[in-house]
């Protein structure tokens, strides 16, 4: 699969970073996968995917900016089926505080919301908000709901939510505006492990009804 080089734009970001801008989230996921599937480039510190961009930071004492720019220009986006991410299964007790409201917003029954959520394969597009919080996307928009108009001051750790095109799990208790449809006991972030995040960008996530 080849992409024309003009399908992404490389924006300047100081002396030790570039910001790659892509047309849509799906392109970000493929570009990120392509950049990271064979490990990273020498001197690269972070590769941070987001909704429309990938930020790449590097150590200019190890690699010149021109080397990183060439690497970003020549990257080959990798389609989802070639993903190297891991498969993560997460048991969810459905029935969160907003399940009825979500069903109402979507014109579905609560049962249909649950089977759509548990029946879809989700991909971790990017992280943020809190360590271990992954923004998950799937290949349809049947579960697209707005955030709550008033965020909650406390959302318990393990809450499974929906917001916009994303699903996500709160790694810790925090304020939050996502619509809550269930809870899980899995630890999303365990600082004592060498790999503290349960879900990393590029991973595929399957929810299982507990």
């Amino acid at each position: 699969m080849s992409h024309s080089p003009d399908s992404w734009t490389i924006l300047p970001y100081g002396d030790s970073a570039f910001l790659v801008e892509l047309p849509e989230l799906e392109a970000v996921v493929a570009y990120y996968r392509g950049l990271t599937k064979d490990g990273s480039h020498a001197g690269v510190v972070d590769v941070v995917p987001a909704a429309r961009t990938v930020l790449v930071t590097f150590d200019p004492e190890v690699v010149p900016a021109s080397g990183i720019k060439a690497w970003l220009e020549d990257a080959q986006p990798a389609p989802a089926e070639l993903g190297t991410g891991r498969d993560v299964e997460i048991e969810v007790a459905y029935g969160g505080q907003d399940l009825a409201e979500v069903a109402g917003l979507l014109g579905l029954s609560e049962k249909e919301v649950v089977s759509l959520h548990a029946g879809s394969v989700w991909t971790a597009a990017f992280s943020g908000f809190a360590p271990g919080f992954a923004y998950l996307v799937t290949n349809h928009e049947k579960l697209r709901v707005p955030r709550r108009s008033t965020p909650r001051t406390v959302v318990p750790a393990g809450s499974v939510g929906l917001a916009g095109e994303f699903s996500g799990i709160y790694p810790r208790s925090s304020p939050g505006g996502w619509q809550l449809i269930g809870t899980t006991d899995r630890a999303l972030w365990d600082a004592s492990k060498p790999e503290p995040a349960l879900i990393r960008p590029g991973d595929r996530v399957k929810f299982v009804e507990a």
Partner: protein
Amino acid sequence: MGIVVMNPGPQTLVEDLGRPGYAALGLSPSGALDRQALLLANALLGNPADAAGLEVLLGGLRLRFVTASTVAVTGAEGLVKLNGSEMPLNQAVRIAPGTVLEFGAPLFGVRYYLAVLGGIDAPRLLGSRSSDVLSGEGPAPLRAGDSLAVGRTGNDASSLNSVPDRAGGAVPPVRRAPDPGQAIVARVHRGPRVDWFDDESWLRLVTQHWTLSPESNRIGARLLGRPLLRIRGEELPSEGMALGALQVPPSGLPTVFLADHPVTGGYPVIAVVRRGDLDLLAQARPGQTIKFLG
């Protein structure tokens, strides 16, 4: 245990050079805000560059050393006392068991760095002992009554009894803490979203005298001045934020992202401060003038 915390002051944190490389998991790089000062303190003792020390905000810290040690204080400048007598800054100093070390309010800069021979020992997270105030990861801020452990030195026990030979190792030069009466100058590059602002805004950024807001912290240096004007009204989808990014929220008043910055953000970045100039910003006092050189 080697050191007892009698009074932590307003905020004292364990910091080393941080844990860069985990932004994709949502974790900030963290680490000493004035890296140069911590590197100097460790070099003065012959510690490894990545040994953890204490970052002491605005003084107030009082410690009692249970065992003999050698220490160095760098960064901010103010009255630091050993058992009531003034202690020289920016050099290795031997201290006897039972010594009380006390940090006065700094007169220059805001953050002292204390290195201890062997480094402060604390559990590591992803290779680093740095405390991250945004995520709450890493060692908790010091509290009165805490005991701090000191790491073992690589050398034999005799090194504990002598000030390290500084001629052998490469000790970086002392950089004086910035004079609060003078402007701090930080060089900037154009950022990825400079075209989201009118032409005036770039000029305003690099010509006006900004003032450091008292709401600044390890997450960001907040600036006060005439606001920058955005010309694009649409929402910016959250994107990766790098150290030194000058993010401009709707108020038009930029924040320079420091070590504990959020890894993503939804406001446009007009400029990026050069890495080497962030150390000076870490020592800026609330109300101090900041100038950006474009």
